[in-house]
Structure formats: structure tokens, C-alpha cells
């Protein structure tokens, strides 16, 4: 469904991602883990072209794109098949919760206001925020804002939703509600690529875990393979460090 081949990205001559290959099947949850600065965020941003890779190929929803020669139209096209949930939520500050969810449906997908409203209500209910539809982002807790942003992503019915550390900006007591919403999204059959430091969540929810290190895919496999049975030295080192810090 989503297929990345030979993706390369550099910032001002510094290689950040090197020859990344990634396959994600329809309805799969793929989690990216790895040390800080390894390029997990950058990889997600490449998939919806917030960063433009130097080279590589992506197929998504039956279409192929060549990153090295991608044009404006293809860029919009690819972005419209993906949705991003940001670490800092990035809700539109001038819009209420429901307007945040409606806007792209009306502006980008040209749906009628009524249609967009109904779809948005449905998605806001799904993340448990039907009581907050008229609140501005500023009036919502971090957890609520993140759930609105999940509803916003769902509402455009993308092929894949990209989550970049969706809970790491949240107070600990708000993490649970957001994880619950993500789980809900995963269960509904949505294809997901998730970057997270919530290791036990990753283990529970993922169909595939990708361990990245220094801009490369170091290892990938089923969650228990990576978390329990890995014999990759770098994976073990990362997980050990992680568990030691968590204690």
C-alpha cells in the first residue's frame, strides 16, 4: 500500500536519511523507534513532503512518485493522501475544534459545509470530544487538542496517518486518553505510521516495529522480534538504555 524505496535526505550536505526502504500494508500499524536525532521525524515529514528528499521513490494508493523530480501537483496529491498528527498538535488557532476538523474537507476536498460538519461531528465523537466542538484550541488541554488533531486527520480519510510522538508534549496524566484514541484509530483499520517513545504501547499496538539508527533502518520485524528476541547489538543497546532510564 505504501512503499518507500531508496529514500535519501540531507540538510545542508549532512546526510540525515540514507537509503531508507519501508513497506507498510493496508491497515497495518508500523512503529518507528530509535535514538534521538536518528531521523524518525524527518522520515515522516518526507512521506508528506514537509521535507523534500534528495532522491527516492514512494508508491501510495496505487500511484508512484519519484522524489527527485516531484512537481507541485504531485506534491499536493501525495499530501492529500496522507495526514500528519504533530507532536505540538498544530491545530489552527483561529478555528474552533469543529472548524479545525471541517476546514480541510471544505477547502481541499470541496465538500459542502453540511457534509463536512456531519463527518467532523462523527470523528470528534470517535475521540470523545463532542462536548468541546466549539472550543478554541487555546481553551483545550493538550490531550484534548491532540485528540482534535487526530479527528482532523481522520476526517480527510487519508490512506495513511503519520503520528510523530503524539504524546511526548503531554503531561503524563493526559497521555492515556490520546493513546486510547490512537488505539481506536488502529482498530478501525486505518493504516498508521507512528513514531513514539512509549515502548509498551508500541509493543501492544504495532504489526511491525522499525528500529532506526543514524539515519538508517537498522532492524525491522514483528514487535516481539524487536523487543524480545533481537540479536542486533544497536537495538539491544537502545532498548537497554531506554529501560534503564524508565526505571
Amino acid at each position, binding site marked *: 500500500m505504501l512503499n518507500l524505496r531508496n529514500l535519501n535526505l540531507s540538510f545542508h550536505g549532512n546526510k540525515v536519511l540514507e537509503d531508507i526502504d519501508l513497506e507498510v500494508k493496508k491497515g497495518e500499524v508500523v512503529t518507528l523507534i530509535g535514538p534521538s536525532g536518528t531521523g524518525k521525524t524527518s522520515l515522516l515529514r518526507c512521506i*508528506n513532503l*514537509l521535507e523534500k528528499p534528495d532522491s527516492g521513490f514512494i508508491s501510495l494508493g496505487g500511484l508512484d512518485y519519484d522524489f527527485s523530480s516531484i512537481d507541485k501537483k504531485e506534491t*499536493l*496529491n501525495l*499530501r*492529500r493522501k*496522507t*495526514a*500528519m498528527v*504533530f507532536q*505540538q*498538535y*498544530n*491545530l*489552527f*488557532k*483561529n478555528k474552533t475544534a469543529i472548524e479545525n476538523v471541517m*476546514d*480541510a474537507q471544505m*477547502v*481541499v476536498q470541496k465538500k459542502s459545509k453540511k457534509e463536512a460538519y456531519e463527518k467532523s461531528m462523527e470523528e470528534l465523537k470517535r475521540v470523545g470530544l463532542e462536548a468541546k466542538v466549539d472550543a*478554541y*484550541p*487555546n*481553551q483545550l488541554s493538550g490531550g484534548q487538542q491532540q485528540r482534535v488533531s487526530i479527528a*482532523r486527520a481522520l476526517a*480527510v480519510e487519508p490512506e495513511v496517518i503519520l503520528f510523530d510522538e503524539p504524546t511526548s508534549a503531554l503531561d503524563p496524566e493526559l497521555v492515556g486518553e490520546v493513546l486510547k484514541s490512537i488505539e481506536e484509530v488502529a482498530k478501525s483499520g486505518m493504516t498508521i505510521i507512528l513514531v513514539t517513545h512509549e515502548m509498551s504501547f508500541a509493543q501492544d499496538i504495532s504489526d511491525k516495529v522499525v528500529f532506526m539508527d543514524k539515519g538508517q533502518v537498522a532492524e525491522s520485524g514483528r514487535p516481539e522480534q524487536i523487543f524480545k528476541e533481537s540479536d542486533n547489538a544497536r537495538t539491544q543497546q537502545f532498548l537497554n538504555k531506554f529501560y534503564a532510564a524508565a526505571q
Partner: protein
Amino acid sequence: MDLQYMISILPEFLRVIPITMLVVVVSAVFGFLLSVPVAGIRIRKVPVLNLITDLYISFTRSIPILLQLFLFFFGIPVLLQLLGFDVTNISAMTAAIVCLIIYNGAYMSEVIRPAYLAIEKGQHEAAESLGYTRFQKLTKIIIPQMTPIALPGLGNAIIHLIHDSSLVFAIGVVDIMGLATIISSGSFGMQQVEVFLTVAFIYWGISFASEQIIRYLERRKKRVLNRTGYEMKEEAEYNV
């Protein structure tokens, strides 16, 4: 002091208020239209053009507006002649308006630019990631958030403009101030205090009215800013 005299000359002044208004409105509207591309060039740091706009802004900022008026009044015909047009002089009104448009293009661009830069990168990225075109992003997300930030600065620009417009008499435009000089010289230097006091009251009135409008905008701005959580950034560094 001759109050009666002051009241008697008032209607004459009221008749030329539209001239001052015309100068202000035309300069404000076209100055704003000019300021948008200027701000755009500086925000995107367009090569070469960026350098030109930097010079342009530093020019308008450093040279007294009165001197700028003279430069335009005497300079535009010379420039037009160099370009091959057969023009020996232009009307004072034209020179004044062109000058104030150019001045406000620079001034207002320095209100718009910080307002644009105050918008978080995440707002752009959220729209881009959903597939908004550049135009959709600007009109639906960015400009609505910039507006309450920029409005007070633009309001101040207009107050300054009203004050600056009182200098156009110097190149011969018969606006409020122009009429005042005519009347006071016509009365052989008598009752000068009355004439200029009347003018002062008129400017006071105009400024008071425009300040009320700006206050109102400020209150609205506070409400919107509270909602969006943006802080007011500092104003353009113009001292007029």
C-alpha cells in the same frame, strides 16, 4: 482672541477636508497594496530584490518626510524626462500622493512582516500536510491570524499618515494646512493664532475620530489574540 473669526473661517476649512482625506485614503490604500509585495520579498529574502527593498526601507525611514516630499515634487519630472517623457512639472497633489504611497509602502510592510513572522511554523505545516495550496493556506489560515496582530500597527500608520499629510502644503497642495497659510498671509499676519488654532482643532478632531476607530480595533484584537494565544509583537521602528 477672536472666537467669532475662528468660527467664520471654519466652513472654508471644512471644504478642504476632503482634499486631506483624499490624500490620506489614496496613500493608505495604495501604500498597503505596495507593502504586501515588499513584505513578501523581505520575508522570502528574494535575492537582489531583497537588497533593493532593504535600501528602500532604510531610505524612507531615515529621511524626513518633508524632504521626501520635495524630492518627489522636483524629482519625478526629472526622472520622467530621463525616461523620455515630455514632462516639465507635475501637480503638487500627484507628487504628494506618490510620495506618501511610497512612504507607507515601506512603513506598512514593516507592520505586515512581523505579523507574518509571528505565526508559528506549525500553522503552515498543518495546512501544508493536509494538502492546502499556498493560496488556500494564506487565505484560510495565515492571514486570518495575522490580521489582529497587524491591525493596530496599520492603524498607527494611518494616524501618522494624517499627521504627515499636513506637510503637503509645503509643496503647494491646498489642503487644510495649505489653506491656513493662504488665509494667514491674506490677513497680513493678523490673527495668525486664530487661524492655526482652528487648524489644530480640526486635526485634533480628525485624529480623535481615527483613534476611536483604532481603539475599537484594539479591543477586538485583544479578544481574538486571547483566543489564538498570540502575543503582540513590537511595532515598526518608525519615529514620526
